[in-house]
């Protein structure tokens, strides 16, 4: 279990986290928020990289952490890099090999164990990062923007790895990609401007936006009633996707998690 209680963090005069309080149990949690909302700072505080200015963080003993910027030793082989983390995590020498190979198998890199890190693609290095986070049977896994820089196939693979962790450790994924959260997370935490806006689920977010999302033909743009929020212009169909509490000149559209997310964020803008 992870407990974050009234955590505050500031850099100089800038308040980055403002009294963040969370209690996370087993399951996959998505930490969702726009850039600059404090996601990375919160993850670093939980991982122990930063010490909060105020508040308490209680974490399990064993943590796996994949930071946003994951650098590895390019001269080492995948196995050696994993061995480095195994030594850091104080995994006994006699069980290291088995533990390392199991983690590499989870991210489908067991056959690349003897390859140098420098010879791997960016996506593969990211997978090594995920493997090292899984090393040592962590009770809490923190992954900051885990799918950043991954191609669609790699992203799918990553989602499968996370899905396989269900029922095991508490997993926290920090991202601004709503689709990733929608497909992998049981719970969603919305962070905005250093504060927790809501703790929800994908279904809840969709339900929140139900009846407020409209698909409006582009030629009726001038008939839109204020206030409304233009989500996007659908390429090809020539329609506008609009979020509004008021009826709009178009059809109601099926709400998505992204719509629910925007509803919350828009309310704070």
């Amino acid at each position, binding site marked *: 279990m992870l407990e974050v209680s009234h955590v505050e963090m500031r850099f100089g005069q800038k308040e980055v986290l403002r009294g963040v309080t969370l209690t996370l149990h087993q399951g996959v949690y998505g930490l969702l928020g726009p850039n600059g909302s404090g996601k990375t700072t919160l993850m670093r505080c939980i991982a122990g*990289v930063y010490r909060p200015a105020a508040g308490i963080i209680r974490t399990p003993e064993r943590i796996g952490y994949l930071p946003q910027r994951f650098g590895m030793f390019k001269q080492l082989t995948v196995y*050696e890099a994993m*061995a480095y983390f195994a030594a850091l995590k*104080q995994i006994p020498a006699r069980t290291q090999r088995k533990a390392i190979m199991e983690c590499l198998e989870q991210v489908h890199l067991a056959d690349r164990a003897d390859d140098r890190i420098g010879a791997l693609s960016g996506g593969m290095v990211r997978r090594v990062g995920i493997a090292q986070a899984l090393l040592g049977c962590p009770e809490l896994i923190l992954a900051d923007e885990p799918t950043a820089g991954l191609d669609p196939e790699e992203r799918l693979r990553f989602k499968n790895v996370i899905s396989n962790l269900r029922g095991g450790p508490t997993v926290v994924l920090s991202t601004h990609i709503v689709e990733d959260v929608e497909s992998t997370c049981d719970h969603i935490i919305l962070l905005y401007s250093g504060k927790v806006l809501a703790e929800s689920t994908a279904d809840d977010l969709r339900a929140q936006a139900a009846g407020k999302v409209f698909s409006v033909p582009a030629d009726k743009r001038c008939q839109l009633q204020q206030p409304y929020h233009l989500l996007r212009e659908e390429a090809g169909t020539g329609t506008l996707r609009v979020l509004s509490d008021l009826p709009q000149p178009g059809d109601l559209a099926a709400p998505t998690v992204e719509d629910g997310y925007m509803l919350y964020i828009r309310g704070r803008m």
Partner: protein
Amino acid sequence: MIRRLQLVRLTFRRTLPLFLAPIVSAYLVLPLITAAGLASGNWEIALENLIYGEQALLPVGGLLWAFAYLQVWIGSDGEETMRACHRGKYVCAAELLMLNIGFTVMLLPALAAGTLFFGSLWTEYARLLIQVFFYIGLFYFTAILLRSVTMGGMLVLAYHLFCIFFCRNTEMRGYCLIRPDVLAGAAGFPYILLLLSGSVMYSIGAWLERRPDRG
């Protein structure tokens, strides 16, 4: 202990040139410059060459080992991941002390060989080890304080060069803790001061390292 040794071994595996440089200095460069003195038939010149070379090269060699290890831990792309393994409470001081001991052991045969030619060089050996201990402590402290191994290394290197170039200057030599111009003992060398200040810098470095960035 074994796991810490594993970390050091893997670190050196990725920074092999930095690891090998002091060994090459001790077992190739120093014998060559000493041999050049011996070739002239003057043993005093040969000993002077040896002391000068040893004082100029080997303390920097110790620094290189520490640099190779710390560059992974300070300001590298992997730092965040590694520090998270211990919730930000890991300090490198123990590994640096192990490197210090390793450096001591590595130099033993070289100094023993020197003793065969020039008589006892053990005071010289002791001086060198204390200097290396001081340099690594100073480097650790400055690198952690400045959050940059490059800046920390440059500062220590700048001081080293200052010592090499100004040790014969009567006004400046008082500030020189590296004295290639004299044998150990002859300079009234401040061993205790070096040991104490080295220990203090190690301790402060470890204390600073244990404190994660605070908001």
